[in-house]
């Protein structure tokens, strides 16, 4: 059941638009971290739907995990346990070869990912990052867990009020592009998404912008130019 702290957090933001963004901002203020992001997850991993990010790096963190299919949020969601990585410099590249290197480049030194789950159902993940290394103190950890529960309730509230349609819509092109690439390369959809992600990662672009080029027929993954 909802704890007193979770009820308090939710009463402070009190519904309304940008609920998840305001919760993330409150979470950022409550913890000694640099940025906070929230992404929706499915049983297969990141959905690519980032529903809140307090800064560009927080958004980039979520994007990277979607692009690479690896990282703390992927792990936290799959295991149902928080993933706490207080020093990415030391442990990051070994644990997540590509994600670790990429986030260090972006100036992220520590990352803490909290699963948003309802029973065994994976809903999403709350990611907090820091630009200096260091553990979360116990009080911060307790607070982060309370925020994770509050964000879970907020996500369900939005789902019951059609509040997640727009964020889910925003990823439509990525999936359309995946379908196109699958035919272009004659591969399965999962492989097509990997190729899309790899292209984005290696060309240092977001998955969304590469997808827009594919859908706009400015970029094709098969050998020659596309047939008109």
């Amino acid at each position, binding site marked *: *059941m909802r704890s007193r702290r979770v009820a308090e957090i939710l009463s402070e933001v009190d519904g309304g638009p940008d609920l998840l963004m305001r919760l993330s901002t409150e979470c950022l203020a409550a913890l000694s971290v640099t940025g906070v992001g929230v992404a*929706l997850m*499915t*049983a*297969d991993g990141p*959905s690519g*739907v980032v529903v809140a990010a307090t800064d560009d790096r927080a958004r980039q963190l979520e994007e990277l995990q979607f692009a690479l299919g690896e990282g703390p949020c992927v792990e936290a969601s799959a295991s149902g346990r928080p993933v706490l990585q207080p020093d990415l410099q030391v442990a990051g590249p070994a644990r997540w070869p590509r994600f670790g290197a990429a986030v260090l480049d972006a100036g992220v030194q520590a990352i803490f990912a909290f699963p948003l789950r*309802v*029973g065994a*159902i*994976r*809903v999403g993940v709350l990611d907090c990052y820091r630009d200096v290394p260091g553990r979360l103190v116990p009080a911060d950890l307790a607070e982060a867990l309370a925020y994770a529960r509050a964000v879970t*309730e907020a*996500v*369900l509230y939005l*789902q*019951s009020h059609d509040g*997640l349609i727009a964020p*889910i819509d925003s*990823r*439509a*092109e*990525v*999936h*359309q*592009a*995946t*379908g*196109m*690439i*699958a*035919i*272009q390369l004659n591969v399965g*959809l999962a492989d097509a998404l990997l190729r899309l992600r790899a292209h984005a990662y290696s060309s240092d672009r977001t998955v969304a912008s590469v997808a827009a080029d594919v*859908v706009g*027929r*400015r*970029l*094709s*993954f098969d050998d*020659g*130019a*596309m*047939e*008109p």
Partner: protein
Amino acid sequence: MTSREQLLATTFVDLADTLVADFDVIDFLHLLATRSVELLDADAAGIMLADDAGLHVMASSTEEARLLELYELQNDEGPCLDCYRTGRPVVRTDARTMRTKWPVFTQRLRELGFRSAHALPMRLRGDTIGALNLFRSAPGHLSESALAIGQAMADVATVGLLQERAIAASERLAIQLQDALTSRVQLEQAKGVLAQRTGLPMDQAFQLMRDYARGRGKRLGDVAAHIIAGSVDSDLLRDAPRPKPPRTRPNER
């Protein structure tokens, strides 16, 4: 401990334990009804719960109790209804008052061999979700202590039910969200597959898919799944309009 005290202790644990995987609300309320009879010096018990449409008979210790509750609903009178409406216990044993207040119900009560009726609210703070009815074949009302224990049982059961409902509602929403995410992915992927195969722009590819689904009375989601699996291609492609030539030549990669 006496065996009654033991049963009482077990009952409170059982009534609090709603967070099990195979929770069944009817079994749970049936437990409340039968234990009420065993523990409270009553001869029959019945439980009504409310939903948006009103009160429903959910469980009873005997067929007679079930009939009595149904009479209450049919005739819109009786202790359970008063209790649910006021959120307060109803204890009435005086025959004349009963006949005045609930003429039909009181007659049925006597016909079925009962002399008194009690109703305890199933309530948490301001929220009354139903009532527990207790019937006795002897005249006179239940003791203060029996009523207090009965109310405590009703209270614990209410907390358990509300908790189970909240969790079930959350799970429903979480599953809905999962379904929305995955079905949306499939739909968009299918559009992409079709757009690539036909050379049509995305919106026309979607139109083609929709017309195909509508024309054959199929669900769009099923058609999308088939397109992804590559199994409705020939039909669909035959229906496809020829794409207009692009305005500009696509760039070489």
